[in-house]
């Protein structure tokens, strides 16, 4: 298990980095934390001609949090965001999601931008980005642009970023008042990728009825999947078990064929999704009541 031969560049500016990506278009890979890319190199599943390491580019490693937004530079380590007291206080959902990524030893090296650009359909951060309507900032040869989460994840390991573009930051809106949240998943072992998982948020009106709901499933499709029809079933209803169960059945029923692999069958993943949606909604509603 040794990587194939490749060249390596450590540019010191975004302009230099995008130049390299343009010059080697199709043959270059961006390297950030390496927690996904280097295993792929070790197993020779990826054979880029050159790696463009972002580590020496200034101003990509930062976290800024205020009441509305937690914004994070692409090269910020997942563990740094997880341990940020500001993030814990202002965005407990994001904090909880980060703790589900791999192990602390991987999060010490893995970056927020790397996880989002990698776009594994079982990964937590892409699902959180979709659930929270995050915005992605990228720089390419044509300049800077922003992409909404709903337009970012195209299919398995594929995003709206061109091969010559670099993700520079992501902005996660915080949750509104009287909104409860949950992120839960089932994995073979603690720290493994999820077989299936759910991000839920639920807002309650003063009379206790559900007035907002967001449901995103991960590990069950080619991208994180928003369960819009199930969200529709929730709004205006009382926050109670029978309502959550109906939403779970609908979300699971609406899934296109989930993945079958050595870890789980499509049917098993679909059933997990159904059960997890119900549990996530119950947890989110309980948090909304306490909020």
């Amino acid at each position: 298990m040794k990587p194939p031969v490749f060249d390596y560049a450590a540019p010191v500016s975004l302009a230099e980095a995008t130049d390299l990506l343009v010059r080697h278009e199709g043959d270059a890979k961006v390297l950030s934390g390496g927690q996904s890319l280097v295993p792929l190199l070790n197993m020779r599943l990826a054979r880029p001609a050159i790696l463009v390491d972002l580590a020496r580019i200034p101003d990509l490693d930062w976290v800024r949090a205020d009441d509305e937004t937690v914004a994070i530079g692409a090269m910020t380590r997942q563990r740094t965001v997880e341990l940020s007291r500001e993030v814990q206080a202002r965005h407990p959902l994001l904090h909880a999601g980060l703790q589900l990524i791999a192990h602390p030893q991987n999060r010490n090296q893995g970056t927020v931008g790397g996880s989002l650009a990698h776009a594994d359909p079982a990964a937590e951060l892409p699902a959180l980005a979709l659930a929270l309507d995050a915005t992605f900032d990228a720089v390419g040869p044509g300049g800077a642009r922003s992409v909404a989460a709903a337009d970012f994840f195209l299919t398995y390991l594929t995003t709206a970023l061109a091969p010559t573009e670099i993700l520079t930051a992501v902005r996660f809106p915080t949750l509104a008042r009287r909104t409860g949240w949950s992120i839960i998943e089932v994995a073979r072992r603690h720290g493994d990728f999820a077989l299936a998982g759910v991000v839920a948020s639920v807002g309650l009106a003063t009379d206790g009825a559900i007035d907002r709901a967001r449901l995103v499933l991960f590990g069950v499709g080619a991208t994180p999947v928003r369960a819009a029809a199930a969200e529709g079933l929730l709004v205006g209803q009382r926050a109670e078990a029978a309502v959550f169960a109906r939403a779970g059945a609908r979300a699971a029923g609406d899934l296109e064929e989930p993945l079958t692999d050595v870890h789980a069958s499509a049917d098993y993943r679909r059933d997990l999704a159904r059960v997890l949606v119900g549990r996530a909604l119950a947890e989110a509603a309980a948090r909304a009541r306490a909020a």
Partner: protein
Amino acid sequence: MTVNGERHEADVEPRTTLVDFLRGTLGLTGTHVGCEHGVCGACTVLWNGKAVRSCIMLAVQADGAELKTVEGLADGPTLHPIQRAFLEKHGLQCGFCTPGFMISVYELLSRTSTPTDEEITDTLGGHICRCTGYQSIVEAVHVAVEKMRTK
């Protein structure tokens, strides 16, 4: 880079992983190689104070970094409290996984002198041991905490 306080300079092929550089080029064979894809924890080293997997990090990524490996724990012939704790509580059998475990415990105990049970399991959860049974490793961490407090 600096490893265990000693400066090293070398030209490496970009594809050399950090663990192969430490073991092959520097001869520091205390850091072990197991799965080579970031799962088992045998290759864990301290990189700028943080425990990371040296099997899925390239040596070039550690250019200029400060590293600590298991060889850097003891002070000459005097074992580090973490090492003594593993010894006393039988926190190892074959020892293959042990250097990685001790580096992660070292990171934990440099961040807090009073880790919670949850923090301990979260840290150890990033490591696989095929022989000892995790309970004695957990006990070793508790003893290490004690030893470092009374040191």
